């Protein structure tokens, strides 16, 4: 069955419908990863977004839910060049199409993903509608423009707090849509992780005998998370324990301490982003997924200094807070998908935690 992606600027891409047969409106972004489609589709940071996979063959190695980054896919829609007819991998339990059906994710295959990516790169990220009919493009555009996508963090964060593992170091995780592998990375390093919903009061973190706090990744515009920002400000001021911020967590700490964020033209989403550690001069290849960034000019030099930058566009990739044991990064040390090169950040964080 034919399907279409209509962008808010009027461009139309034709393909064949896959997955659920429903129409959706979403923000359309592209990801350049060549592996890790399941991890991407189940990353809560993609809530509200439709993902274009630039790699043209998706579904090659099937999937196993043990690789999922959360309990379900969060992408609104997927746009791919070709879905593999036959998957092959010793762990595969499922074909990607069955997975999309099961979780009611709609998508298109056979669309010109390269052309679409170029358009998003040149015009910037846009909203779009996945639909089966384009008889009235004008009204579709109107519909797209009227649609607002908000409260994403609320929708992906855990509703209740809970604890995993029984390691000797107690870590509190502020969940704005945390990827499973952040928790796994901590558990693997002998931690007990208590996960708190996005709107938890800062006091819970200070009174719980925790030894360290991790601010997780998550979807959407960081400025939307006013409650979280207020609580993080308190944590900045009062917490005596080390804090590690990842992605949205990094942005929220920035906003809580007076810095500003802005929307990137088309974001960073892929497995190949070079980040330079300004202290060691070493470059790490990092996994990234963000549409917003902290404005380097808005950072108060008395509060934080830039520790990492992106080699490609010079944007802020990491901050070290002065006089505090707070380190935040814009990229994903937990990988999944993508390179594991920066997993040492967890080791460094826990070293500080355990030095207390």
């Amino acid at each position, binding site marked *: 069955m034919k399907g279409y992606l209509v962008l808010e600027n009027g461009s139309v891409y034709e393909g064949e419908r896959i997955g659920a047969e429903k129409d959706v409106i979403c923000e359309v972004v592209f990801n350049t990863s060549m*592996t*890790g489609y399941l991890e991407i589709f189940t990353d809560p940071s993609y809530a509200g977004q439709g993902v274009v996979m630039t790699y043209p063959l998706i579904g090659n190695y099937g999937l196993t839910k043990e690789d999922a980054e959360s309990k379900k896919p969060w992408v609104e829609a997927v746009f791919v060049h070709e879905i593999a007819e*036959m998957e092959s991998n*010793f762990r595969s339990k499922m074909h990607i199409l069955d997975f999309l059906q099961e979780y009611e994710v709609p998508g298109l295959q056979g669309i010109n993903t390269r*052309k679409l990516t170029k358009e998003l790169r040149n015009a910037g990220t846009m909203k779009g509608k996945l639909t089966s009919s384009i008889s009235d493009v004008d009204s579709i555009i109107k519909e797209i423009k009227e649609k607002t996508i908000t409260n994403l963090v609320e929708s992906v964060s855990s509703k209740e707090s809970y604890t995993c593992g029984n390691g000797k170091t107690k870590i509190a995780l502020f969940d704005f849509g945390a990827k499973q592998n952040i928790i796994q990375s901590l558990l693997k390093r002998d931690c007990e992780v208590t996960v708190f919903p996005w709107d938890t009061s800062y006091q819970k973190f200070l009174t719980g005998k925790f030894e360290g706090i991790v601010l997780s990744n998550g979807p959407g515009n960081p400025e939307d998370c006013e409650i979280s920002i207020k609580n993080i400000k308190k944590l900045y001021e009062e917490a005596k324990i080390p804090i590690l911020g990842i992605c949205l967590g990094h942005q929220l700490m920035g906003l809580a301490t007076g810095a500003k964020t802005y929307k990137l033209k088309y974001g960073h989403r892929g497995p*190949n982003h070079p980040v330079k550690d300004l202290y060691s*001069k070493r470059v790490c*290849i990092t996994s990234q997924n963000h549409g917003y960034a902290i404005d380097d000019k808005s950072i108060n030099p008395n509060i934080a200094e830039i520790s990492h930058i992106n080699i490609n566009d010079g944007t802020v990739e990491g901050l070290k807070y002065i006089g505090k044991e707070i380190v935040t990064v814009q990229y994903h040390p937990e990988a999944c*998908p993508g390179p594991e090169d920066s997993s040492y950040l967890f080791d460094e964080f826990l070293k500080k935690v355990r030095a207390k």
Partner: protein
Amino acid sequence: MLFGQAAEFDYAGTQACRELKKEGIEVVLVNSNPATIMTDKNMADKIYIEPLTKKTVEKILEMEKPDSILPNLGGQTGLNIAMELYEDGFLTSHNIRLLGTSPDGIKKAEDRQAFKDTMEEIGEPCIASKVVNTYEDAENFANEIGLPVIVRPAYTLGGTGGGICYTMEELEETAKSGLHLSRVHQVLIEKCISGWKEIEYEVMRDKNGSCITICNMENIDPVGVHTGDSIVVAPSQTLADKEYQMLRTSAIKIISALKIEGGCNVQFALNPNSFEYAVIEVNPRVSRSSALASKATGYPIAKVSAKIAIGYTLDEIKNEVTGKTYASFEPVLDYVIVKIPKWPFNKFLTASRQLGTQMKATGEVMAIAPSIEQSLMKAIRSLEENVDSLELPKLKGLTNEEIREDLKHVDNERIFVIAEALRRGINVDTIHDITTIDKFFINKIQRLVRIEKRLKEEELSKELLLTAKKMGYTDKVIARNNIIANFKMVDTCSAEFDAKTPYYYSSYDEDNEAVSKTDKKKVLVLGSGPIRIGQGIEFDYCSVHCVWALKEKGYETIIVNNNPETVSTDFDIADRLYFEPLTKEDVENIVETEKPYGAIVQFGGQTAIKLTKALTEMGVRILGTSERDMDRAEDRELFDEALEKCGIPRPKGETVFTVDEGIKVANELKYPVLIRPSYVLGGQGMAIAYDDNEVREFINEINKTTQEHPILVDKYMLGKELEVDAIFDGEDILIPGIMEHLERAGIHSGDSISVYPTQHINIENQKTIIEYTKKIAKELNVIGVLNIQFIINKGNVYIIEVNPRSSRTVPYISKVTNLPVIDIATHVILGEKLKDMPYGTGVYKQSDYVAVKMPIFSFEKIKNADTSLGPEMKSTGEVLGVSKVFSEAILKAFIASGVNIPYKGNVLITVRDKDKIEMLPIAQKLDNLGFHIFATSGTAAFLEENGVDAEVVQKIWEGENSIPDLIGSGKLSFIINTPTKGKHESRDGFKIRRLAVESKIPCFTALDTVEALYEALEKGTKEEDLLPIDIGTI
């Protein structure tokens, strides 16, 4: 100082030289291969086309006193020499640094035991294995871990001498030969893990310790087939992110442990049923795989490696493709690469086509497309094997049982057998069980077979046509045309950033990215495809020089090629690069998009020439010699007419189609006769027949593939062969020089030792040659280059053939005469006249130096290939020896070709009866030099009668003290064996030649070659007495 080596390293050396020169560094280059671009005068400050041996390199180091050596960009030989120089203290005592990787790092990567220890230290798994120095230890270890085992000799290129052993007998044979071949007499015995996935990563590291992976690759053929002989896809297809990252992390850990600064290749075996993996091998240098990775991603690995070696860090080096990003990022692909090796089996009919751990391919093709199916189909037609889909006609006649049986054979045709099996209804699971090839790939072949069936059975709908096109079917297969391809860009980043380099591949998605806005005239230059016997990098040399000349004249240049191991496919050579098959339809798509002013075909070998007619039909102007005139040189009747008009004689001959006609003509001409198909390069299918049976055998062989043109039967004339390359502008001729072949006519010119200037030709004959060259060039309306082969028989000059195109001797003659032949020819093609250029006309002034070009063979790699030389070309490369004195030049060439020069010792002589008389003076000379001669009883008696001492050795299967024992004893310096007629592998001569190859003893099959060797030995000159010569000073 840099080293060069085989073809696949030319692009690397060229990139490195250009980069280092740009940095203001004085570059000294040593490479024995004259057909390379890197040995061009302007590539380095000092260029030595000299033997790549420790002694010669030491001498050059003493003369040039470089500060450092950059050993990791020129292949294994250069790396080995650098290590030897380091190990014996030469580098330290001369204050020369090794750049790139430390000697310690190289040792850890290259030495089997050191490598294993290092991997153990960092916790990276290897395969159960043991380094042994004797056969007894090999046997013991094999008993311990159980068969099958793999034998891998240390320090050999392409795994020479290795193999999988299923029985103790096989182990004995392989381990013994491996120990012999290894420089350090060391082999690794390892547990066989065939059936595992073979995955490679290309990694890069700088002095700060920043590491990136450029690309990973997955072999469709599981472990067991050498990666150079595997069909490879990039990126990996069947690895989930977990496995992908696991191996990536391991590769980075390894390059960090070895402290490599520059590029490195890590090969893994991955158990298809678990996360278990093992590191197979690490190459601490650019390799064949890095050439592929470089072209597959657009990331210039060699260039970046060179910059890292001189101290840059990855984040300081710009990514030239985007112009915005830096070298410190990982390319992401939004297309799929398929590489298929090009094998020389059509040249070696007796050779085993089985693939294993010993690489047999001479070259490779790469294809780019959005799907595996399309990429695979493009690669198949790029091979130029007369196959443009997965249908191999010869499989049609086999029964289902035979096909099923064939699936078990790991050989060059396996992919076609799989397709045929699917056609017969054998299912994916069964094929997977037999071949252990991943089902994912078998399914892709199944999809192609399904489309093939639909195309045969269904009405051709627009949907079916588009589907077929997207799967890579050509119009020729579909038999209709109304969809034109669009072009996408290779940009390193999956369109995340705007790219500046116009590097394209075709697809049937909408949106054509290859839109150019230029006021310049565009010229299409066709490349020469995969490296094969008869068509090597010489032609890439010509294509690249043509592009450079055109650019200089203000033209916009477009190159089309599909060989990743070339300079022409570097994205900064032509203005626009199309990585595409060189077939009519693929080129037509490019023509539709580019609408070039004209095309130049005369530099791209037979691959380009074959497209001349198609281009003319497309309405593309052929610049230079026209299609009609080119045809006049190939078409026998037209060619005879032209020669007659000029009054030039040639050996008598006729054209035939059938065996009966052939026999009739042969008897009229009287035996021996030369038989060959028309329109081929490298003497494909050419043979000398001495009787009716041989005519039958040879013509039947030629007719196995459909012939569009008649077969030529000529009187075989014995005599001196000469060769001329020339440039003609319609009025004047410029001949850089006349080359003489040391072996007489009957041995393919590409396999002969060639000397410039001529040593044994009188002035009268030279004059005739010049006169004939000019006459025939004018008659054939040549504009540009031409190549002519002459023969002198009883004092008379005859023309054997005229090729109105560039030949394989062009780079050689350009270098030794210091005349930029291709540059001049390109100017002439564009309409300039020789008389307006500063080079003069007629014969160019003769050089003060003598240059000897010597062929290189790869017989040891191809089991059961007959090594005897004949009219069909067998060599896979060439080296050069240059000196003011002929005997020294030839000595250098022998050394460079890898012949271990024997100054005394034992020689075995077995020649056919009719060669005995001619052999006598050679035997006498060897006797005088102090060689001890062994011969079979007849030959020995003949020698004794004529006063030459000879010891009798028993014929091949005559029991004690037979020839095999003698060869096996290691006592022989070399063997002289002239082949009896017939190519049959059961003959004694064949066995002797194979034994010699496998025991690495030089075996000369032409007496003229031995004569040449004698000239080299006669004066007793040693390698250390030879003066290296900077080619730039010639």
